[in-house]
């Protein structure tokens, strides 16, 4: 009996820690999407597809052109940042005053374009960097370095965004613009420029996520489907546009997936997480940290 409990506890602890590690990356993804929604009031349905493009960027730079990972990563981040700015400039900016459904359909269209483009350009093979990071063993528990690295890098990325948003004029303007759009010009703020910067920042976060996810998952044209929907659910659960809510919701979801996977299969973890989401939508439809009006 005692022996059973020991093993049980270790597996439980391992699952909890893995849940936290997963939560870091999910929080990073949610932050990017929340940033775009909170500031520009537009939902990038194709957000996870930007991550997919970033993963392909990493694959080609590392596997095909032989760049070291550390050199390729900043380039991939900049590439996806530019893609985010381009997405805003070409698709979102002309639709800023259009009904939300048009914006959703437009970014949904971009999702299919990016998937099809990836299929044609890169093929449907599963590809990876071929980098195998060691596994950290603490007692009987095993944690992969790629997950630890992803967790730490995601936290650092979010910390950098936090300092940017609170310490710089541009960051303060990004926070201000979501509270009162109309008077920004009275402050001397060019809202178009702030939108473009925000889009690039959202893209950069997707790029960072791509660099971290490509260490753990194979890339293929439909890889966005494995974390796009969950990112949306996290943002909605946290309250769309609410950074802190998104951060908390990411860890809640990650723990449900990880612990659900412990007691049954990993797929059941996802089922539990989605069921939890549906229940929460009845209890708190505006999200965990909804402001009471």
């Amino acid at each position, binding site marked *: 009996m005692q022996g059973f409990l020991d093993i049980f506890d270790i597996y439980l602890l391992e699952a909890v820690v893995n849940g936290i590690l997963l939560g870091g990356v999910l929080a990073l993804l949610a932050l990017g999407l929340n940033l775009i929604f909170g500031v520009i009031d537009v939902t990038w349905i194709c957000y996870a597809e930007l991550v997919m493009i970033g993963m392909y960027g990493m694959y080609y730079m590392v596997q095909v052109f032989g760049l070291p990972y550390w050199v390729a990563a900043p380039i991939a981040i900049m590439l996806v940042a530019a893609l985010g700015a381009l997405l805003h400039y070409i698709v979102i900016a002309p639709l800023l005053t259009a009904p939300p459904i048009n914006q959703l359909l437009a970014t949904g269209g971009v999702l299919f374009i990016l998937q099809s483009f990836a299929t044609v350009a890169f093929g449907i093979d599963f590809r990876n960097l071929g980098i195998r990071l060691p596994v950290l063993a603490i007692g009987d528990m095993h944690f992969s370095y790629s997950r630890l690295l992803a967790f730490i890098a995601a936290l650092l990325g979010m910390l950098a965004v936090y300092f940017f948003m609170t310490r710089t*004029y541009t960051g303060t303007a990004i926070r*201000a613009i979501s*509270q*009162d759009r109309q008077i920004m*010009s*009275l*402050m*001397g*703020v060019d809202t178009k420029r702030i939108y473009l910067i925000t889009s690039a920042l959202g893209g950069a976060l997707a790029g960072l996520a791509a660099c971290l996810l490509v260490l753990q998952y194979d890339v293929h044209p439909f890889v966005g489907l494995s974390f796009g929907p969950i990112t949306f659910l996290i943002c909605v659960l946290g309250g769309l546009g609410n950074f802190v809510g998104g951060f908390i919701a990411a860890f809640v979801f990650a723990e449900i997936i990880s612990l659900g996977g412990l007691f049954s299969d990993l797929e059941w973890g996802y089922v539990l997480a989605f069921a939890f989401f549906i229940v929460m939508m009845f209890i708190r439809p505006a999200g965990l940290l909804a402001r009471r009006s």
Partner: protein
Amino acid sequence: MLELKSVDAGYGTFQALFGTNLEVKAGEAVGVIGPNGAGKTTLMRVISGLIRPSRGTIAMEGRDVVATPAHRIVDLGIAHVPENRRLFPRLTVDDNLKMGAYMPGARAKYAERLEFVFDLFPRMKERRSQMAGTLSGGEQQMCAIGRALMSDPKLLLLDEPSAGLAPVVVQQVFELVKRIRAGGLTVLIVEQNVQQVLRVVDRAYLLEAGTIRASGTSEEMMKTDTIKQAYLGV
């Protein structure tokens, strides 16, 4: 300093201003009085570029305001304290003031301007890390004026600074306007509180139904029969 010539302005098909002529000289305090819906707020918005005139010219120190992009008008030295203050409620007082100093020219003078604003409103220094939305009405007005002053303007536009404030606080706000004036700043103020505003300004315009009906020094305006009857209740 500021000159409007036959300005028409409105929203969509609704016209709010008809051929408005108005002038503010350097160092002056000028009031615009009139009833609700007369076009007073539209007048302020058209000067600061929030809306664009359909006809007419606006010049600030000889420079064309209408041809200047809205977000560059602050650089001409115009700071607008909008109706209902329009602070960023979920930003701290500090961050609200920081937004007022957003333009590169103002950023360079940030520390100096902040000291100036805190001298003028010591209360803001006490509340600097508080969310602007949690301030009292009077404090919010201080913060809104402080935010405008952060850009080191030459001309301050005040839109209904007394609106929604308790009578005691209204007194304080007008005292503040006097002190700001004394510092040499040019002020254009729009008010429904006619009695109070005429005590603070040198000259005033009466705006009714989008048209300037009368203008003159404060003393002249106070003696005008229509103003006495309609606005001063004498």
